[in-house]
């Protein structure tokens, strides 16, 4: 199972992350980190009338956490804040398409935690 962890999709998003950077005039900002391993994510969004019109992230972290941020950002642009609020950890792990061991699940979920902090 773990051989599949660093497959093409994950490495693509790790090396060429989508929505990586900062926005000109974000309406929302959030930070989250995982002190046990040093993964840190910062997310910014432009939210207009309950819709996420743009999203960007920066941060340091393992390939899984950064690929997750890239995949999630791609997924969320154009969606409603209600959809973000309802987004479950299971859906996040599905999006990653990986069978993560318990030790790596936190890496996979950090992006979702950060994104949901945007709309708290």
């Amino acid at each position, binding site marked *: 199972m773990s051989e599949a962890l660093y497959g093409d999709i994950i*490495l693509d998003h790790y090396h060429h992350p989508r929505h990586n950077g900062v926005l000109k005039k974000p309406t929302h900002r959030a930070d989250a980190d995982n002190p046990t*391993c040093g993964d840190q994510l910062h997310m910014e969004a432009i939210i207009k009338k309950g819709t996420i019109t743009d999203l960007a992230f920066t941060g340091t972290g393992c390939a899984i956490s950064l690929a997750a941020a890239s995949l999630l950002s791609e997924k969320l642009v154009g969606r409603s804040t209600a959809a973000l609020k309802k987004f479950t950890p299971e859906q996040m792990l599905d999006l990653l398409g990986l069978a993560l061991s318990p030790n790596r699940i936190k*890496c996979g979920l950090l992006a979702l935690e950060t994104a949901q902090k945007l709309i708290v």
Partner: protein
Amino acid sequence: MSKWRKEFPALRRGVVYLDSAATTLKPKSVIAAEQKFLENSGVSVHRGLYPLAEEATAAYEATRSAVAAFIGCRDPREVIFTRNATEALNVLASGIVRTLKPNDAVAVSELEHHSNFVPWQQAAQQHSNTFAVLPIDEQGTVDLKTINKRTAVLSISALSNVFGTEQPIAKIIRQVRAKNSKMIIVLDVAQAIAHIPIDVAKLNVDAVVFSMHKLYGPTGVGVLWARRDLLEKIPPFEFGGEMVDRVAPAKTTFAALPAKFEAGTPNVAGVIASGAAIAFVQKVGYSAIAHHTTTLTRYAIEQLAMHFGAAVQIIGALNPGTRHGVLAFTYRNYHPHDIAQILGNHGVCIRAGHHCAQPLHDRLGISASCRISLGIYNTKEDIDRFIAALKNVDQVLG
């Protein structure tokens, strides 16, 4: 080639195990001792009056005596079996701090493992005593400048699980006792015990702690040694059966040592098997361990420099003789979790994270690192496989 490799059945799975600082693999003799006890007996200790119980009790207490002799302790009643070193440190921190006066301070170093940091911090905070964290100098040695007469307790590790560096313990003890002759000194030998002989009669400390699972023994058995007068002074940590003398609604009195600190049914099979672990280490011998580890550590440092140059940064000084087989490192800006995962895919077992030493990693300005650590079963081929797997990390993440 290590002549001890064949004693370790788990190596048949073909892994390169480089995580002995986390826990050591188990030799056949230890596995057999536990199995034999469970197959032939498996009964509890200290209570039963039937022959099986007396036999188990004798074996359990024989291990206590063997551990006492192993660490230079003349009175086995000063040896307490716990679940692990972490529990031993909780027993000491909670007990000792409760006997301190309001102005007494508790000191640990900034390179301590969380098990030798958090219990003291929490006990000090609860009891309103000052909790001081001593810095380390450039060589990774504990800086004692801020210790004064009010420092009532000092708890430090003899060997860092990140740097691998040995503290100059004899010198430190002399210096702190000169500042406060009544200071209680606790020595965490969890990492050191598999590499350096510990003689509590010569060390002039008040307590030592370690876990058997880092000494080729089973998990679930820790050792707390402390001077008799200290153990008699501090309150018990856990209460229940075995540790009591007389129980009544108005008042309960506690048992004498060592039972006072051994509440409930212990890990009987684990303690008995620990006797076999002590015997194994005595058979191999500390000088053989030191020679083996130093040789391999030197080889690992050389190979890393040769194949990776500055791309791999080893944390701490490069003297192989004092590192005792512990090498924490970073590799470019690759995340340690990714490195460890990819190495794991190649059958190479290393550790990644902050190794339960967040304060140290904060001080070093890094969030996480990788770590290899050597045991008596490791070989040059293991290091070669590790190097080859590390090269693969570049191909995947580069």
